[in-house]
């Protein structure tokens, strides 16, 4: 069974492209908005190597097995057998625990850097200089070389201590996760276990393995992020981001928090007013605690919208004739959806 079945619902029709774009980390405001509606925001970037062909093939398999139905608008719901199957799988599916950190790093890059760092230190502890590094990428090799040089003094002890603490916290969350993590590491005279082996040893199906991997890597990124000055932090620092927002959206937010209007920000940053609005919407979706709703969505607009829109926000239809704000009407509509949703939480 492929792991995509977990993303569908029996009542809420879900856009398949939103699911695809979420997994592949294609962060448009629309994708982020719907991912949040579907409760899958944490899966953003969880399968970056997925491509359209593979995704469509996996969905096609679900359709053929009569587990989901896809309508002509590209929205899918679970069928009755699909509901049963999803229920049945719940007990055997791996349940990720670190997805809240989805925004922290590109896990593919974390994996490569981390594994290279561990490999280099492992070979160092065995005094071996004749080995093939797991990647020949020039920049990665240079970065790890510099890391090793900077904390050479006690790198072995530091890294071992940190990995012990990290391992214990993983094992607390799920013993399988700790085993996955350490058995996939590459080092002196060991290439780690491959996916088929790990799947067998952990009792988790191969289809679920990308989920386990994503979880373990987000966990290590979160650990490196919190353990400032540590060996893992120094190894991964440039791969970790500060906020869930994109760089540009964060720039916009800072100006907005200083009280600048959308027009002022647009002028200062030499971007379109609409781009500024997109940035603010992105903030309202992925970083809602940074939002001052009274500033962002004035009370009078809220009142006007409240007359026309009630109930389940995901079913609201945007009607330009009844939403105030002219060019910014859709922006207000979306903001109000997010606002209501927050109120209902």
């Amino acid at each position, binding site marked *: 069974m492929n792991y995509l079945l977990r993303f569908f619902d029996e009542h809420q029709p879900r856009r398949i492209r939103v699911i695809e774009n979420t997994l592949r980390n294609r962060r448009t405001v629309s994708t982020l908005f719907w991912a949040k509606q579907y409760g899958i925001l944490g899966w953003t970037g969880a399968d970056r190597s997925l491509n359209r062909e593979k995704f469509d093939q996996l969905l096609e398999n679900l359709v053929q097995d009569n587990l989901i139905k896809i309508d002509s608008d590209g929205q899918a719901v679970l069928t009755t057998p699909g509901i049963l199957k999803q229920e049945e799988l719940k007990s055997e599916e791996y349940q990720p625990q670190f997805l809240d950190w989805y925004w922290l790093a590109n896990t593919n890059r974390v994996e490569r850097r981390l594994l290279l760092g561990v490999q280099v230190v492992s070979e160092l502890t065995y005094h071996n*200089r004749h080995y093939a590094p*797991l990647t020949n990428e*020039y920049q990665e090799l240079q970065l790890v070389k510099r890391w090793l040089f900077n904390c050479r003094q006690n790198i072995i002890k530091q890294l071992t201590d940190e990995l012990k603490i990290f391992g214990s916290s993983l*094992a607390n969350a799920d013993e399988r996760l700790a085993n996955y993590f350490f058995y996939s*590491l590459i080092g002196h005279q060991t290439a780690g276990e*491959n996916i*088929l082996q790990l799947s067998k040893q952990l009792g988790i199906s191969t289809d679920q393995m990308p989920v386990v991997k994503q979880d373990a890597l987000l966990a290590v990124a979160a650990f490196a992020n919190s353990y400032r000055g540590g060996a893992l932090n120094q190894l991964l620092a440039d791969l970790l981001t500060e906020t869930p927002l994109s760089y540009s959206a964060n720039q916009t937010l800072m100006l907005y928090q200083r009280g600048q209007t959308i027009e002022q920000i647009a002028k200062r940053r030499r971007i379109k007013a609409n781009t500024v609005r997109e940035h603010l919407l992105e903030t309202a979706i992925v970083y809602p605690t940074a939002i001052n709703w009274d500033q962002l969505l004035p009370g009078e607009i809220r009142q006007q919208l409240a007359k026309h829109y009630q109930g389940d926000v995901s079913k609201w239809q945007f009607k330009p004739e009844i939403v105030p704000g002219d060019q910014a009407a859709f922006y207000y509509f979306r903001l109000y959806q997010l606002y209501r949703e927050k109120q209902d939480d």
Partner: protein
Amino acid sequence: MISEQRLLTVLNEEFGFSSFREGQLETIKAVLNNHDTLAVLPTGGGKSLLYQLPGYLLPGSILIVSPLISLMQDQVDRLHRSGEKRVLMINGQLTGKSRRQALSKLSTFKFIFTSPESLANPEIIGALKMIKISLFVVDEAHCISQWGPDFRPEYLLLSSVRKRLDLPTTLLLTATATPEVRQDVIQKMGLQAEAVTQVIRSVNRSNICYAVKRFLSTNEKESYLIELVNELAGAGIIYFASRKLATQFAEELNEKTNKVVAAYHAGIPSLERYRIQQQFMDNQIQLICATSAFGMGIDKGDIRFVIHFHQPANLESYVQEVGRAGRDGKLSLALLLYCPGDEQIQRTLNYIDLPDSNLLDAVSKKQQPVNVLGDNQELFTFYLQHGYNGKMIFNTFEKRQKNIDNHLRWMARYVNNTKICRREMILNYFGEQLKETPAPCCDVTEPELIDKFKHEPQQNSEPLPGVSELNWQARLYQLFNINNNKEN
């Protein structure tokens, strides 16, 4: 002039060998005397030594053009393992700042590996022009003349690249080249045949035995494969025409046989490929299900059998692929499984929808958009950008199509043959005569051949540790060479 004695000393000090293999000394001497050289040595004949050894004797850098990233990776890894760190790989993965950094330090690298595509980049050529290239190596040089699915038009630019680099001494390496291909390669590289030293050795690998099994349906072929894999001794590779099948069979064979199996192809993430390759080397995995292109980087001495679940496009590819077996000199099996319709797979893989020459000219004159050229528009625009007109392209590709058909006819002859010794057929194809028939040789001369490669019953691999036996702490200690008891 460097003496033979000196060469032997370097061979021993740098590579740990006490004598040269067939054709190596002759090639190295030619190269060191600045002769452009074409070396055709059998698979597993130690071709990388032909540029690595001169690398330690010549000033400047050795530039190696390699057709596949996996192959480059493999060469670079091997140099790393031998302790040589002055190695650089320039390909599509090296971009931005790190590329600028690497290019600015280019002269510090002894061995620079690159792809024909990267050599089409002016920035890279510019940097290479600034350093001394003492030897220009084209690995798998038959690709220059290849008409198969890996068709790479950039190979045709290598001749002008060589000119731009001020004509460094050139070494062309391949394991499989018919006399026509040799001539074609030399000509396409812009060299004069009479001025090129040719070191040609037989493609024959006497320790590889050839066999073909024919089936009526894919199902029959499948069940035979499962049964056979269970019985065959040692490590092996099975080649499939698609990644999907390679992956499917890896899982199935893992379940249904006593071997530990993994899929290995371009769709497998690179870290996972690294693991699988290492495990295969260490015999933790005994069987690899691969696609043709990605089997190329695998270099393991004791591969006992290579099975083709689907036939390759031509006998060159077949000889290359089965040539991964028996590098240790011991008896090995090359088995091709066939069922009706298999040849169609290659026909489809190789098919190129050829546009009309007028349409090509119209695109060239910008009267039509590029996308009218269909799926292979990039290929055709490459030719248009390099001075070909519609008629020339049309003729080139028509010739290519005929070539493919011709190659497939040869494959069919090989598959359908029940009378002529298979080794003799292969040698004839490469313009050679069989001088001596080894025993055993092939399933024509010896019908019970395959049985020779089966192991005694009850030879099982060690089972994997189960979930309860995993211990992440122990694993951490092992990784960092920590004595567990002392620690606690």
